[in-house]
Structures are given as C-alpha cells and as structure tokens.
C-alpha cells in the first residue's frame, strides 16, 4: 500500500513537471543566429548643446533630433549628411504656442513633422524650410481627454495609432480631430491582473511603437521589460515574443506602476524587411549598486536587436557606445543614433 502511494506520487509529479506551465503563454527567444560588434563614427556637432538627445529621424537632406530635457527647444533640424544647424523649434514653455513636453515625433516630409506633447495632450504638425531657416507650426490636434495620457503615436494616412494608458486595451485608433475611433487588443501579460491593477500594468508596459505602411506591420517594444508585439495589419495576425528578461516587472501602489525589473527597449524602427530595436537590459538593482559604489551607471542600450517581420531573431549588433534613439537606412546600411552619455550626441553605425 505504501509502495503504491509512492508510485502514485512520483507519477503525479512527473505529469505536472512535463506539462507546460500556465505562466509561459508566449514564445521566448534566447539567442540570435548572428552577432556582430560594430563601432560608432561620431558626428561632429558644435552648434547645438543637447541635454538628452532621445530621438533622431532623417529624411532626404534633413535630419531632426529631439532633446527630451532641453530647456529652450525640444527639436533641432540639421542638413544631412553635413549636420549644419537649420533651425530649432518646439519652444519649451507654458504659452499657447509652446510645448510643455515632447515625447516623440514623426518625420514624414519637411512640411509634415508631427510632434507629441503628452503634458498638453496635443499633436502638432510642423513645416521646416532649410532655405528660409524656419519652422512653422501648421496645425494642432487636441487629443481627447478619455485617452488620459499619450506617450507615443504613429500618424497613418487615416488616423493616429496611440498606445492605451489605462490598461483596458493595447492601443487606439484616433481620428485627426483627436477622438478615439476604435480600441484594439490587450496587454499580453502572462499574469492575470485585477481591474484595479490595470492602470499600473499599462504604465509598466509603456511601449515604443512604429508602423510601416508598406508592409502593414505595427510593432511595439516595452521600455521596462523584454517583450515585443507584432501586429500584421494586412494579414490580421498578432505575435507576442518574450526575451530572456521577460515581461515588465512592477509593483502597484494605488493603481500607479513602479518599475522594479530592468530598463529594456528604448526605440523601434520597422523597415520593409526587418524590425530594429535598441535594447539596454540593465537591472535597476544593478544601476543602484553602481550609485552605491559612487559611480554613475550608464544610460542607453549597447545592443540593436533585429527581427524579421514575423518576429524571428535575425541579428544582434553589439555597440561600442550606449545609444537611445535610432534611424535606419537599409539601402546605405547606416544607422544614425543618439547618445545621452557624452558630448557626442549623434553617431553613425555601418551595418
């Protein structure tokens, strides 16, 4: 009888251990088939002082850099590839024409530069002229209050795509008058959180997004974890991937999220063939340990992860400098990047 009980116990344990854990709902990537170390070529810029160059975008002969913490102007336009200063715009201030904050921007053409001010809940469109050294605000779209706080966006031909801030959905389609039209998806956490925790969950899952209208791929990467989502809007599929660090870790206090895990991704770019993302992967605890030793921890990612459009890992680039934002040109095999760590705010990598 005793022997039978032991056999039964071993049998049950074996079944439990062989069954997939309910905690791992989504596929994991752990390695990349190709790894390559690449070195930065620092761009010589002596005309503009940046405090925290966060985003960069290049279109034909103009490059725009967004400075997250600039005290005067958030945006700076340069000639490309010579990097001569054209004009600074998006003045910081509380006036009606000024911006309280800048989250990100989208550079479609010189007369179609969209900028997001999360604190004012406005998206403004600007036109830059290299000939006249000017930047003029063309229009302002006031985002609906129901969106609460918008931290990233993509302007398509028909609407804005904006991540949801309250955790009820994953993202919104918002029309050009700022009104939400449709909510899509939900946060792909492997933990089932209660209703009250969802705003904190959404804050922890704060994601950077990009969309490519040619292939219909809309993808998001988490700032505070290692999760990637790919929506193929043409084939109507949704892929979720987790890296070795998993989903964002956080604690919730009165519905507010406080990150406890890692600094994850800092930017994403979708080209016609690939998804490029900047990854940091440093634990907050390790950053704090650096402070404890009297050292300032590095800010920025030393990796660029490249996936195909289905989410298969393709390439890992290991960088010799920590970077934040990127712009990718696959034709010239060039990545332009921002760096917040040194007096070398803009650099270029050949891939």
């Amino acid at each position, binding site marked *: 009888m005793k022997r039978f009980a032991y056999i039964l116990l071993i049998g049950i344990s074996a079944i439990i251990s062989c069954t997939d854990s309910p905690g791992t709902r989504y596929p994991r990537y752990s390695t990349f088939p190709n790894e390559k170390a690449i070195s930065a070529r620092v761009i010589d810029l002596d005309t503009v002082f940046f405090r*925290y160059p966060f985003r960069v975008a290049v279109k034909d002969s103009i490059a725009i850099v967004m400075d997250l*913490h600039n005290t005067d102007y958030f945006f700076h336009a340069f000639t490309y590839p010579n990097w001569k200063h054209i004009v600074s715009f998006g003045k910081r201030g509380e006036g009606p024409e000024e911006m309280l904050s800048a989250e990100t921007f989208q550079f479609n053409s010189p007369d179609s530069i969209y900028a997001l001010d999360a604190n004012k809940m406005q998206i403004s469109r600007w036109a830059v002229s290299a000939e006249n050294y000017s930047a003029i605000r063309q229009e302002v779209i006031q985002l609906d209050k129901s969106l609460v*706080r918008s931290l990233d966006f993509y302007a398509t031909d028909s609407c804005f795509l904006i991540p949801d801030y309250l955790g009820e959905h994953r993202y919104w389609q918002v029309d050009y008058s700022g009104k939400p039209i449709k909510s899509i998806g939900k946060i792909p956490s492997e933990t089932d959180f209660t209703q009250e925790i969802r705003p904190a969950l959404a804050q922890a899952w704060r994601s950077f997004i990009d969309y490519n209208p040619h292939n219909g791929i809309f993808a998001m990467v988490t*700032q505070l974890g290692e999760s990637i989502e790919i929506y193929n809007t043409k084939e109507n599929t949704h892929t979720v991937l987790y890296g070795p660090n998993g989903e964002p870790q956080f*604690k919730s206090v009165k519905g507010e999220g406080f990150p*406890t895990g890692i600094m994850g991704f*800092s930017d994403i770019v979708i080209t016609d063939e690939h998804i490029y993302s900047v990854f940091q992967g440093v634990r*907050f605890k390790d950053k704090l340990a650096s*402070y*404890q030793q009297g050292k300032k921890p590095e800010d920025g990612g030393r990796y660029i992860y490249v996936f195909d459009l289905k989410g298969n890992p393709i390439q890992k680039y290991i960088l010799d400098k920590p970077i934040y934002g990127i712009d990718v040109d696959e034709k010239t095999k060039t990545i332009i990047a921002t760096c917040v760590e040194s007096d070398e705010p803009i650099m270029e990598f050949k891939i």
Partner: protein
Amino acid sequence: MKKKTLLKLIFTASCLLATYSLLNNHETTTLNKLAFQNIEALASGENDDNAYCLGYGSIDCRTVKVEYKVTNFSLD
C-alpha cells in the same frame, strides 16, 4: 522519540530561515536608500504615497521624465 527530534529540527530550521530573510530584507532596503540619495533629484518630493521621481531619464513619472520611479526608496 524520533518524531519529536524531527519536529524540533523542522522548527529550528524554520526559525533560522525566518531570521535570515528578515535580515536580508533590511539590508536591501538600506542599500537602496543610500544609493538613491546619490542620484541627482529632478522632481523629488515626498507625498502621501511616498513616491519619488529621481534623476534625468526617460521613464514617465508624474509628468516628468526620470531615471527612477520608486516608492519608499526601494525596488522591493
């Protein structure tokens, strides 16, 4: 007799484990607090949630962008 010895052993082991985890927890909190004090404050300020927005960075914290968003000077 054997049963009593086993129970005593389990009890002692539990006590040791509890003491260790208590000390370990305390150590982590102290380390974090000291570390946080070295960070340049951007928008610090205690409030009813004991929440802090610290340093210059890219994490969204109550309308500012910071390096750390924490409560009680702890990540635990």
